[in-house]
């Protein structure tokens, strides 16, 4: 009996493979950002020595060269804006902005230009731009290298927001994002970069707006975002031991949001906890709580509980950072208060 050996990849490599396959498939796909090559212009062994802050792009430069893989100066507004312009002119740029927090420097280009262009120009603009950013707490990288910001991009009409939690999803969602004609913010959680998961070698796409039920359950629905999916699953395991059956849902994309799957789950379980490592106000947790309540009020036995970071920037010191993002214990507690 032949045993199919399934290939595993880390999320960072899955993302790298998606970029490579997109570039192979379509010459209009380019990649740019700070240090996406490394040692730019140095030649020989000194060139291609970075591949981005986490190595995601390291396979690209040798294959596609300096015309399609470009290191940029530290000019986030300028090169993100150039990405918007290049997309408007027909390329499919994948722009690495390193950390989500740095999108602050390019926010005008994303908000005033990219997000509004299709609408403002009456539908004539197609803007196949993908912005990749790392996000999240957990590395003691402190307040300016840890923010999530996906709530802000979810607030903006015209932008799609993707938050993969597994290597498999990261590859399929990034390929889909690159070939989507709308601007996409693609968030890669720092703490998920290294762990491996099964990732098929051939290109495949996962549609945006389709949630994944990570664990089926009947007593409570736990929604986790990005790294919080893992914590939700851990909490579900503990809850199971205590006799509570939790369903864990990973929305995978926040914009569009798969409301149907969320409502269907709550129709079954009657309670919901949303786990989001962002500050609470106007968060995705609040959005999910509001929209699910609006659409499933009669099924709910208790208010949707939000388990979020505190209303604070991300602290540097481990003693505070450890309690910043929702802990497994906090999720379990929240579920227990619903009962």
């Amino acid at each position, binding site marked *: 009996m032949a045993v199919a050996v399934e290939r595993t990849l880390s999320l960072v490599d899955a993302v790298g493979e998606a970029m490579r396959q997109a570039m192979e498939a379509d010459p*209009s796909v*380019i990649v740019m950002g700070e240090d996406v090559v490394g040692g730019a212009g140095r030649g020989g062994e000194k060139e291609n020595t970075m591949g981005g802050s986490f190595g995601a792009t390291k396979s690209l430069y040798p294959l596609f060269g300096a*015309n*399609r893989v*470009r290191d*940029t*100066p530290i*000019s986030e*507004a*300028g*090169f*993100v*804006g*150039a*990405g*918007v*312009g*290049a*997309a*408007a*002119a*027909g*390329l499919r*740029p994948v722009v690495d902005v390193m950390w989500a927090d740095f999108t602050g420097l390019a926010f*005008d*280009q994303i908000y*005033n*230009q990219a997000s509004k*262009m*299709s*609408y*403002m*120009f*009456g*539908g*004539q*603009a*197609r*803007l196949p731009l993908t912005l990749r950013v790392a996000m999240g707490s957990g590395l003691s990288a402190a307040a300016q290298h840890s923010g999530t910001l996906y709530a802000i991009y979810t607030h903006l*009409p*015209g932008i*799609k927001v993707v938050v993969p939690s597994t290597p498999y999803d990261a590859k399929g969602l990034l390929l889909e994002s690159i070939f989507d*004609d*709308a601007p996409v913010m693609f968030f890669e959680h720092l703490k998920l970069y290294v762990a491996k998961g099964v990732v098929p070698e051939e290109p495949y796409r996962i549609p945006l707006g389709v949630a994944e039920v990570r664990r089926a359950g009947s007593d409570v629905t736990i929604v986790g975002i990005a790294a919080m999916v893992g914590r939700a699953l851990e909490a579900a395991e503990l809850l199971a031991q205590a006799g509570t059956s939790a369903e864990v849902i990973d929305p995978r994309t926040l914009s569009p949001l798969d409301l149907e799957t969320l409502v269907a789950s709550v129709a079954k379980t009657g309670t919901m906890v949303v786990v989001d490592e962002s500050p609470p106000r106007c968060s995705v947790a609040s959005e999910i709580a509001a929209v699910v309540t609006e659409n499933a009020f009669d099924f709910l036995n208790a208010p949707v509980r939000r388990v979020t970071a505190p209303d604070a920037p991300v602290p540097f010191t481990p003693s505070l950072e450890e309690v910043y993002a929702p802990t497994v214990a906090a999720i379990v507690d929240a579920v227990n208060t619903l009962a």
Partner: protein
Amino acid sequence: MRETQVVTEIERDTVLGLFRTMLTIRLFEQRVAKEFRTGEIPGFVHMYIGEEAVAAGVCANLDDADYITSTHRGHGHCIAKGCDLRAMMAEIYGREDGLCKGRGGSMHIADFSRGMLGANAIVGGGIALATGAGLASQVRGGDHVAVAFFGDGAANQGVLHESLNLAAIWKLPVLYVCENNGFAESTPASYATSVPDVASRALAYGIPGVVADGADVRDVYSAARAAVERARAGEGPTLLEVKTYRFRGHFEGDPDRYRDDDERRLTRGNDALERLRAALLDAGVPERELEAMRTELEAAVSDAVEFARSSPFPDPADVGRFVYPEPLERVEA
């Protein structure tokens, strides 16, 4: 590096073309200003009257596959890049037959089919976009260029610095055209800008910085031609500053109290359109030819207004449409 051209037989067509473009802009703008006072045009309009030589002189060096990005004062750029007057006017009136189906208005006219990537109500907003359009051209290996038009006020936005540096190190085929009309709303360039010539900032990027006289469209045309040729040849970007003149207030309705009548009179003395007309007559172009052109263009503008006024307003039910690009089938249908 370049000389002001005289009107010779050989370039008669070019110069007449410039005149035609400038006159179209002038007549279009005068009509917009007039109709704006009736209250039928929603929002704000910023008139390009007096600055026609910039758009005309630069865009005469471009074709449909070249890109431009524009500003809040963008009607002139649209016309010079070949946008349809009817569809432009309908846009300004907020109608369904407008270039942007009425969603954008005066400050957001775009026509991607003409390489016109949009007027922009963010001051400096088009600068990085044109840089990206130039990048697209370079990546594809064509010889198409991109032009960013922006004002003296916009020249103090950081994105100009970032874009000039990026275009310089990548030798992007981009022309940065600063339309220096001396004011950003009420704020004089002499107050807000640390150097007399924006073009001198090219020094900071190792690229050519050129000043052209916006009262002389042939000067603008020649300067732009040199820069466009340079860009098409893969030699990189140019910063071209055109000293130009805003005849009207910042927007229609601006009391314009930061200038006095004498200044406004002086400003209007630098009318590139009048000067070119005089030069054409001097060079023997028959006055009736110019008058016939005016009559024809006036009719075209009137027709555009009629068209706009008879176009329907968008259906309120469609308020949520076009937020994301529609599937291609539907767009093409």
